[in-house]
C-alpha cells in the first residue's frame, strides 16, 4: 500500500533527518520542563502542606498584619477576637525558621498550651508542654533527623529545652517542626507580647446563611474590631504566606531561566534547520506552497520538539518528585501523586516554548524568495 504523505509525516521526517541534534534539543527542553515540573510541583505541594496545616486544625481564618513585611501583631488582640459573636476559638501563634544544628533548620511554632491546634496532633510519646516551661515537642520527622527522643534535651539558640513529646501532625509542616510554648519562643525571638498570627475557628454558620457569606461577615467583624489587621480565609492564607510566596517565586524564577535556555535551544535548532534547508524551502515555494504553509511546517517542527521535550520533562519531573517523596527530609512535604493540572500546564508551556522558539525561523523561512532559495547551496 502506497504511503500517504501528511504534514505531520513531513515534519517527523524533517526532524528525524538530524537525529542527534533533535535528540539533544529534546534533552534541553526536557530538562527545562523537568525543572519546571519538579520545582513547581514541589512549591505546589508546599502550598498544599500549608492548607493541610489549617484544615487539619479546623482553622477558618488567620489574622495577620496588613503589610506584607510586618509579621508581628499584638498578642492582646486574641482576647478581642475571641469575644466576637462569630468566633468559637482564637489562638495566637508565632512561627519562625531556626537553625537547630549546623545541618538542620526547621520551622519552630510557638503555641499556647491550651491552643486548639493540639487537637490535630497525635502524641506518639510523652505529654504536651506547659506554658512558661523550657519544653518542646518534636515532630516525628524532625525527631528522626535530630536523633532525639522524649526526655532528651535540645539546644535552641544557646538555651536548653527538654523534649517532652514526639508527635505526628496532620501536615508535613508540623511533622518536621518544633512546637514550644508561645512565651518561650517570644523570648527567643525578642517578640514579647507579639505574635505572627492569630488563628480563628468560627462558630457554625446560622441556618439560612451561606458559608461563604458567613465567612465574609466574620472577616468584616474581625477587621472592624481590630483596625489595621487583616482577617484572611485559611485557604487564601495557605497560598499567600511569605514561605509559599517565596517557594512559588523561586520555582517559577528558576523554571523560567531553564525554559529560556530550552527555548534558545529549540530556536537555534530551527534556525540551523531553516538555513540548511533553504533550497528545499525554495523548492516548496516553487511547487506552490504558500508562505503561511512554510510557517506552519516550521512551527509544527518546533512545536513537536517542544511537545516531545515536554513529555520527556514530565517524566524527569515525575521521577524527581518520586525521589523527593521517598526522601525522609522531604517526604512529608512532597506527595508522590502527580496532579494532572501540572501535567497539562507543563505540556501547554512546552508547546508554547516551541512556538516562541520557532517563530523567528518560521518567519525567516517564509520570507525566502523562491528564486534566491533555489540558488542557495
Amino acid at each position: 500500500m502506497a504511503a500517504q504523505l501528511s504534514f505531520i509525516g513531513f515534519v517527523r521526517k524533517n526532524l528525524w533527518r538530524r537525529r542527534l541534534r533533535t535528540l539533544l534539543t529534546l534533552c534541553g527542553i526536557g530538562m527545562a520542563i523537568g525543572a519546571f515540573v519538579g520545582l513547581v510541583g514541589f512549591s505546589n505541594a508546599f502550598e498544599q502542606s500549608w492548607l493541610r496545616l489549617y484544615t487539619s486544625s479546623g482553622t477558618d481564618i488567620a489574622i495577620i498584619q496588613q503589610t506584607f513585611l510586618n509579621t508581628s501583631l499584638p498578642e492582646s488582640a486574641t482576647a478581642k477576637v475571641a469575644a466576637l459573636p462569630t468566633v468559637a476559638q482564637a489562638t495566637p501563634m508565632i512561627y519562625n525558621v531556626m537553625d537547630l544544628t549546623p545541618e538542620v533548620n526547621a520551622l519552630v511554632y510557638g503555641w499556647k498550651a491550651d491552643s486548639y491546634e493540639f487537637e490535630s496532633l497525635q502524641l506518639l510519646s510523652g505529654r504536651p508542654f506547659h506554658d512558661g516551661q523550657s519544653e518542646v515537642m518534636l515532630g516525628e520527622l524532625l525527631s528522626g533527623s535530630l536523633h532525639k527522643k522524649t526526655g532528651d534535651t535540645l539546644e535552641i539558640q544557646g538555651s536548653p529545652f527538654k523534649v517532652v513529646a514526639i508527635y505526628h501532625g496532620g501536615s508535613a509542616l508540623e511533622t518536621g517542626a518544633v512546637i514550644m510554648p508561645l512565651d518561650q519562643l517570644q523570648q527567643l525571638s525578642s517578640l514579647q507580647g507579639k505574635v505572627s498570627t492569630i488563628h480563628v475557628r468560627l462558630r457554625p454558620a446560622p441556618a439560612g446563611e451561606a458559608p461563604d457569606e458567613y465567612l465574609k461577615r466574620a472577616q468584616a467583624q474581625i477587621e472592624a474590631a481590630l483596625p489595621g489587621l487583616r482577617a484572611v480565609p485559611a485557604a487564601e492564607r495557605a497560598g499567600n504566606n511569605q514561605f509559599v510566596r517565596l517557594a512559588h517565586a523561586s520555582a517559577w524564577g528558576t523554571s523560567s531561566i531553564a525554559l529560556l535556555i530550552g527555548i534558545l535551544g529549540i530556536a537555534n535548532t530551527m534556525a540551523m534547520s531553516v538555513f540548511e534547508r533553504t533550497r528545499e524551502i525554495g523548492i516548496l515555494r516553487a511547487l506552490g506552497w504558500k508562505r503561511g504553509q512554510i510557517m506552519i511546517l516550521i512551527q509544527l517542527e518546533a512545536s513537536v520538539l517542544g511537545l516531545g521535550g515536554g513529555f520527556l520533562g514530565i517524566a524527569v519531573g515525575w521521577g524527581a518528585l518520586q525521589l523527593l517523596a521517598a526522601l525522609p527530609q522531604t517526604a512529608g512535604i512532597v506527595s508522590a501523586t502527580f496532579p494532572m493540572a501540572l501535567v497539562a500546564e507543563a505540556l501547554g508551556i512546552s508547546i508554547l516554548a516551541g512556538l516562541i522558539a520557532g517563530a523567528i525561523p518560521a518567519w525567516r523561512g517564509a520570507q525566502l524568495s523562491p528564486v534566491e532559495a533555489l540558488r542557495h547551496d
Partner: protein
Amino acid sequence: MTSPALEARNLFKSYDEGQIEALRGVDLSIVTGEYVAITGPSGSGKSTLLHMLGGLDSPTTGEVRFRNVILGSAIDLDTYRSRNVGFIFQAFHLMPTLRAIENVQVPMLALKPCSFDRAARARDLLKEMGLENRMEQYPNQLSAGERQRVAIARALANNPDILLADEPTGNLDSVNSGKIMEILIGIQQKRGMTLIVVTHENEIAHAAARQVRIRDGKVEA
C-alpha cells in the same frame, strides 16, 4: 484564433539596483497547448524569463499574463504556481528525506492538505512514468533518469495547465535525455498542455513547435 495561455509584455528584470539587466523588454505570447523551446547562450536571460513565466519571480517592470490575467494582481503567484504550473528543474530538486511516492505528493499538500487520495494519485503518475517498481525508493537510491521522471510526476501532481522545464536533460546522458524528452512531449500531446522548455541542446529545441531565442535579455527576431 487560439487565445494565449501566457503572455509577457515589455518585461524588464534588473538586479543590483539596475546594474545588471537580465531581461530588457521581452514580449512573448504562447498559446494553449504549444510546445516552445527557449534557447540562448548562458547568461542570456532565458532562465530568468522562465522564472517570470512560472511566477517564481516578479518583473521589475512589465507584466506576465496568464489567460489574460496579470500575475500577482487578480491571481497571486503562490496560487498560480500550485494550480496552473508544474516545474521541472535540471537538478531534479527532490526532497532527500521523502520516498519517490511521497515526493510526488508534496505539491498536493499545498493545494489539498486534507485530501485522502494523494497517494493513489501519486501512484498513478509514477506508473505513467514507468516507475511502478521504484515508488518506495529515496532519491539517492534512484538513477538520474529515474529522479527526473519522479520530478516530472511531481510537476504533474496538481494537473497544471503549463509545464515549465529548465534544462530538464542537463544532468542526463543522451539515452536518458531522449527518454525524458519523449515523456515530456508525450505528456504535452496527450494532455494538450503548454510546454515551455529552456535548453541548450539543439536536438530538443528543434523538436519544439516554436523556438524563442534570447540574447542579452531580448528576444531575437
